């Protein structure tokens, strides 16, 4: 059986759902960051699969995926810095405790 675009798309849908689940259920700020990384990876799989199975040449999909990777790295750096700040201020990285602006 030959592998087509659909296979990759379903796979990436599965990874996306796992990432969303992680983002919804984890209370640890770094856990949420891990969920975001999963979601971004599923996006990348989609980009590259479309690039591979699309008609004609060009590599728009791969370049989009490259930018996603760059953004993910940048986002992780800032997020870890924010986590450390959160820890410094409220002495935990439980996101439910960071509710000072809740009113």
């Amino acid at each position: 059986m030959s592998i087509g675009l659909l296979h990759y798309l379903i796979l990436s849908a599965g990874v996306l759902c796992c990432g969303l689940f992680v983002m919804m259920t984890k209370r640890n700020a770094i856990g949420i960051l891990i969920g975001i990384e999963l979601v971004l990876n599923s996006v990348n799989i989609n980009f590259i699969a479309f690039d591979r199975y699309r008609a004609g040449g060009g590599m728009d999909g791969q370049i989009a995926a490259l930018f996603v990777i760059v953004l993910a790295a940048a986002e992780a750096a800032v997020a870890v810095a924010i986590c450390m700040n959160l820890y410094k201020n409220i002495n935990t990285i439980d996101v439910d405790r960071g509710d000072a602006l809740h009113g």
Partner: protein
Amino acid sequence: MIEQRQTKNSFLIVGLVLAACASSASAQYPTPENRPARAAESELNAEESVVTSTVAPNSAVEAALFYLFGGTLLVSALGVCVTKSVVRMATWLFGALGAAAVLYFLMGAAFLGAIQLIVYAGGTLILIVFGVMLTSKSPWVRFDCPRIEMWAAGGVVGVLFVALTTLLIGTQWPTLSAAAHPATIAEFGKELLTTYLVPFEVGSVLLLVVMIGAAHLARQEN
């Protein structure tokens, strides 16, 4: 005593000379013009991806590799969902990222696969584990969420997955290009510096801003 020493030395010399002769295998000495046979061969293989350079498109090997690493990816993603400890989650994430990189190789995007490994696994993941080490008071600290929320999240995500899958299966996807088109790094770089020059530059400015911002956020208070 001296004689013995000399025999040892002569053994050494004879052995080294033999070894040197034996290790001389380059067939023709390859100046860039002088690499004919293998060059032709590599042109034959140029359309295929790198690590899986012997995997023909639409072959059983490709299918097997897809199911193996796609399965690894899904299992690792599920592992991230069910694990409580953050460092274990990061380890599962490493499995997912590695499997995704292999899938990129399989799809002919070798450069992206390598970049994925170096940026995610070599950089981001280390940063995450480092963040855990700096912010956790003990390895057993867990922040659990209420069981009801787990079920709700599971329900929402399950519905989303079913909806996405039905949508995907129901759509007519074009299957025009079955063979991976070659993506050499030279082409990739040229594209990046011509068509996508503006996003590329914006990306580098963004990285600079992020570097300064992260350093500012994480600095010690005076």
